[in-house]
């Protein structure tokens, strides 16, 4: 498993019901493309985050399949509709089988 992996999420803490919010996410990950050679000219095996999911209370917001063309420390910015109070869940899938999650509760103004 990659060491020192850290996730980061930014979204408003409070919104109005039915509002669309911007969500930014980042995971620290080298995104080893599989196309580099090491000092002995041997290919370094691919090791990337290959999938990312965001859901809100069990409903899908966005589902990404990710290739090695995404930069180191993958960053995604997208829009989500907030129907009411609840929790956003974020899941990153690593090539090595590891799964990283983060979540954010959001409250709704009356």
């Amino acid at each position, binding site marked *: 498993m990659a060491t020192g992996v850290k996730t*980061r999420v930014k979204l408003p803490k409070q919104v109005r019901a039915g509002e669309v919010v911007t969500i930014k996410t980042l995971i620290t990950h080298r995104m080893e493309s599989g196309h580099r050679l090491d*000092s002995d000219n041997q290919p370094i095996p691919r090791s990337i985050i290959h999938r990312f999911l965001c859901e809100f209370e069990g409903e899908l917001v966005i589902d990404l399949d990710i290739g090695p063309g995404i930069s*180191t420390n993958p960053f995604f910015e997208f829009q989500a509709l907030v129907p009411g109070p609840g929790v956003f869940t974020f899941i990153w899938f690593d090539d090595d089988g590891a799964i990283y999650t983060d979540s954010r509760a959001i409250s709704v103004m009356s």
Partner: protein
Amino acid sequence: MTWNRRKFLGAATGALSAPAVLAEGSGKPRVVVVGGGAGGGTVARYIAKDSDGAIDVTLIEPSQVYFSCFFSNLYIGGLKSIDEIGHTYGALAANYGINVIHDWAVAVDRVDKNVTLAGGQVLPYDKLILSPGIDFIEGSVPGWDLSVQTKMPHAYEAGSQSQLLRAQIENMPEGGVYAMVAPPNPYRCPPGPYERISMVAHVLKATNPTAKIVIADPKPKFSKMALFEDGWATHYPGLIDWIGEDFGGGDVSVDPDQMMLTIDGEEMAVDVCNVIPAMKAGRIAELAGVTDGRWAPVNSADMSSKTDPDVYVLGDACQQGDMPKSGFSANSQAKVCANAVRGSLTGSRIFPPRYANTCWSLIAVNDGVKVGATYEATEEKIARVDGFVSQVGEDANLRKTTYEESENWYAAITADMFH
């Protein structure tokens, strides 16, 4: 002494049509240089050396010893001693007859063409060259001002500030937090903030491996970012947490009494807080009335001020176009300026301007990277022509060579400034 800016502007317009008049006294034309860094040291040396005594050169610099900002991060990383980055002005006086005065320039009269020093001395000039470096913009990091620089150092002037920061890092508690508030563009570099992070990580990895580094950055990206990110993943995995603009890195305030840092509304206790505020031209450029906003606009052909043809501004303080605010850039600009100033005062040949820059950064011991470019003078600005940058995943031997090359460059450029 205060000076009315409008009066300066009027005077400058008049000066354009006035014939060149030599300052009274020795009969030799007089050049006064303010600031003894990479711009000022180099321009004073080149004018004096190449004019062979035909021009009277005075260099005003408050410090007896110049500590170079370039390589000051390597001092913080424990790879250089403070003496190795310190230089004195003795050879400039002895070898080229430059009059070196250790004092502050506090006023410029562009009508009567003289500079007043804090000690009261008034120095007349035919050509004035300002190379004062940077000052910080007050209030750019809420909670921080110069009065707390001993608590939360910037270390953006090398010397005692670098020593303070290094001592603070060495005294961090086990598992403590080093935080940097990174500056917005454009900023002086070196000492590059991200090379500094690399050097702090190098120290902490060896002496305090459970410590953490947090960077609050108002920028969405930074120079050589891919190289640093890759290098940090290789040498210091999990140690460095960079919070850029996207995640609130620009929304920062500090509380020096409590040693607290607030990023995007979240408060955190920190053990070292290296605050690098937003920058502007050194104060004397503002006092001389040659700044427009934060920096002093200059003509790309010879580094003369756009406000006054007898005043030149070099290095970090000037606004010239595409060149970074590096010591290498200032040195390059100084040579073009020296050639032009000497030509206008003695009639020597003036050659077309040419500018270049290379910046080396050290990511870890023997892991050096570099970026460089050449520039040309266009009507509008100094414009980038060609360039290169180190590549991610380069051979380790090449990285070691790059670092050794930077050490050779350091020896050469400091000789070019001071010997």
